[in-house]
């Protein structure tokens, strides 16, 4: 309809003589439209307001001190660390889609891997801010790094918090490199189609002269495989190291060896939920239905089902272990989680993470976009509550009853959490506007038209 395409230039069938040209036009027009539709402006206005609120609340905390949040004794790790683990977890799905599904030769990943990787970068940015601002003396975070200094002191490398610095730093760097490397051929596409000089210059600068030479593709492919193979153990190790923040302590409910796989499964679950939450509207709004098909949505729902069930199994094992151990403190911790002061949060978590994804057993539900979207949102809610339950219930009810205390968040806590979403979505909307949001070269590479028919020798 003419009216619809006036409002949203991304709608309408992709044009092109060949299948490859259709893919190029479908994606490139998103970055090339001079003015995106009004909805984009509204969305970015909201998200940047929230992002400003984020930085404002951080500034307030710097000025006023950590007490501006609800952090107190005994719950000294309140929402900031919950948010940190939450965001790092979300980032893991992007690497899984890029690296692990690549190693498993799942060609369907090519439609979603680019913006999943972008989601990873932005989620890790949001995550990495929290450890830096929650340290009480935020002008000293350089103490976490092994920089020679006049005190002749070094960080303590036995500490999981120090491991975090290296793990999250490595994860961010590797994800950024992987994301950029994947974008080089597509930036070349945008460069070659760009008409305005500034665009041409900037895309050209980023595309570093990529011209699609097969000799270069050969090394590029090897590099891609190497990065995928490196990123796979990396993503498993990063969230394991984050879980060590809790697992290496002695608190009941924290001190358990199930944490690394439990956290990783939860991270993948939450991350895929975020991919779904982004992909379902994006494919509609940006006209990507031919690339991100119902098959993709179904696959993502299936992965959510698997990982959600794993998370549910982990909950079961935690409760069972607490009972089987007959350890007074461990048993109480889990009894308290299910029936104590935080029971409302605990049951929200179990419902959203273990029960809600069970609806994806049914094909009708998997192919129902509103339900899949709602499932994704609930999964994110559930994953946030899981981090909250783990961190705050164990702290608020530990060994000595006289040390107990109930954690209450302050308005600054709410603002910081909401603001982090604002930062995330602002970066994501900017990414959609200016960068290739689907990996065009990879999609073309797995298209049937790319198949080479050989007559003489097998390739």
């Amino acid at each position, binding site marked *: 309809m003419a009216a619809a395409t006036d409002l949203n230039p991304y709608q309408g069938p992709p044009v092109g003589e060949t299948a490859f040209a259709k893919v190029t036009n479908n994606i490139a027009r998103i970055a090339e439209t001079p003015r995106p539709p009004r909805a984009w402006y509204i969305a970015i206005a909201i998200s940047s307001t929230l992002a400003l609120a984020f930085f404002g609340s951080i500034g307030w905390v710097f000025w006023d001190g950590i007490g501006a949040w609800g952090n107190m004794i005994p719950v000294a790790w309140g929402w900031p660390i919950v948010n940190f683990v939450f965001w790092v977890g979300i980032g893991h799905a992007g690497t899984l889609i890029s690296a692990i599904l690549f190693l498993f030769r799942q060609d369907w990943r090519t439609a979603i891997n680019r913006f999943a990787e972008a989601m990873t970068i932005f989620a890790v940015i949001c995550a990495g801010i929290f450890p830096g601002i929650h340290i009480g003396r935020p002008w000293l975070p350089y103490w976490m790094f092994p920089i020679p200094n006049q005190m002749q*002191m070094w960080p303590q490398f036995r500490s999981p918090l120090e491991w975090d610095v290296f793990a999250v730093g490595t994860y961010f760097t590797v994800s950024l490199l992987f994301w950029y490397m994947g974008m080089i051929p597509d930036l070349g596409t945008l460069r*070659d189609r760009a008409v305005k000089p500034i665009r041409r210059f900037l895309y050209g600068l980023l595309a570093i002269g990529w011209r699609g030479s*097969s000799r270069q593709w050969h090394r590029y492919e*090897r590099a891609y495989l*190497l990065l995928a193979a490196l*990123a796979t153990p990396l993503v498993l190790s990063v969230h394991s190291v984050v879980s060590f923040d809790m697992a290496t302590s002695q608190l009941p409910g924290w001190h358990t060896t199930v944490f690394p796989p439990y956290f990783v499964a939860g991270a993948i679950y939450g991350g895929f939920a975020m991919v779904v939450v982004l992909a379902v509207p994006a494919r509609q709004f940006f006209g990507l239905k031919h690339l991100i098909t119902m098959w993709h949505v179904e696959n993502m729902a299936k992965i959510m089902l698997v990982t959600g069930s794993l998370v549910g199994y982990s909950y079961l094992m935690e409760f069972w272990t607490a009972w089987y151990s007959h350890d007074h403190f461990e048993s109480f911790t889990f009894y308290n989680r299910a029936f104590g002061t935080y029971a409302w949060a605990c049951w929200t978590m179990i419902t959203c993470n273990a029960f809600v994804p069970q609806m994806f057993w049914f094909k009708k539900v998997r192919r129902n976009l509103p339900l899949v979207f709602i499932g994704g949102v609930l999964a994110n809610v559930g994953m946030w509550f899981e981090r909250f339950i783990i961190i705050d219930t164990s702290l608020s009810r530990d060994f000595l009853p006289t040390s107990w205390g109930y954690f209450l968040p302050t308005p600054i806590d709410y603002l910081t959490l909401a603001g982090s979403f604002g930062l995330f979505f602002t970066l994501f909307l900017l990414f959609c506007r200016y960068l290739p949001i689907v990996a065009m070269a990879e999609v073309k590479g797995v298209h049937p038209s790319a198949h080479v028919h050989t007559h003489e020798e097998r390739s």
Partner: protein
Amino acid sequence: MSDTKKEAGKAVTEAPLHGLLAEYETPTALVEAAKRVRDAGFKKWDTYSPFPVHGIDPAMGIKPTILPWIVLVAGLIGCGGGLLLQWWTNTYDYKWLISGKPFFSIPANIPITFEMTILFSAVTTLFAMLILNGLPRHHHPLDLKKRFARVTDDRFFLMVEAVDPKFDESDTRELLEETKPVVLDEVLEDRVTSDKLPRGLVYALVVISVAALVPFGLIARARASTMRKTRIHIIPDMDSQTEYKAQRMLDFFPDDRAMRPQIPGTIAVGQLDADDHLYRGKVNGAWALTFPKQVPATEATMKRGQQRFGIYCTPCHGVAGNGDGMVAKRATALAQGTWVPPANLNQDYLRVMPVGQLFNTITRGIRNMPAYGPQIPPKDRWAIVMYMRALQRSHKATINDVPAAERGSLK
């Protein structure tokens, strides 16, 4: 070489031929063409595609790259570097004792070592790939061919360079025509695009380079000079406090010390201990002959004295006060020559010694006996003295001293 040929549409200078460019619509056509060119023995040629074409590597005779080996070396450096970092900082340079754990333990150091391995490998993967590929390369003769812009869209190209030994303008052209390209074109060396940096960029770079030297200059000047002003301290952090600390100098006092000793005669609250009798065992300057009024002569006091004597005195003086406690026996057996035997409390001179003096001996010690004043409160010390008197009396007691009612149980 086609120096003599003039390209229509090109400007003043004659540009030499860079190569011949063939365009194809399908990857299959490209692969077939590549095989022909490979078999013809060309070395300086390449194919171009919007995505990596399956089978193009053997079709072109591309050898596997050494990139994986470079990455392996980088990974090993990262691994070793991570271990070295942790060992050197926590075990060698500043030995850090954490809960009595060993200075270096590999399990604790694995996470960071692992991450460093991945980090070094990944960074090397990208940058080695770019370097091996000769990227960034912002300038290429192919950029002048408008049709070549479709290489990142949906077309496939093959170019044989003129510098190849087997290149011949007409023969190579004929070979390429046989592969049925959509378009076969000449690519000329670029004599059109200026290879000078834009003026504005040059000026900006010069300005930035000069400006970048300013901080170093300021640092050099600061290192070479002294300052009278206090340094800028952005976050006070209670770092410099105006009060005088214990070891600081202060010329206000004659001995130049900020820390002042106690004024003689200073007594802490509650420690006046004015009662000479109770605290020092003296009455009017002489040893007390009686017990202070705070220590009643009751069964309770005696029992307390017995218990305290058993705790503090029996190790040396023995249970009966004869100087034969376990410590004394052991010391005598060791015969080191340094032992002064504990007194036998039942000796005559101690039986007549005033209780105040006995109290003083317990409080201040005597010969090898340490002062028990700090350990035993005053009333307890008096109770011990009372018990001592009971021991001394029992040493020279007769049956007539025992109450009549209990004489039967002794016989």
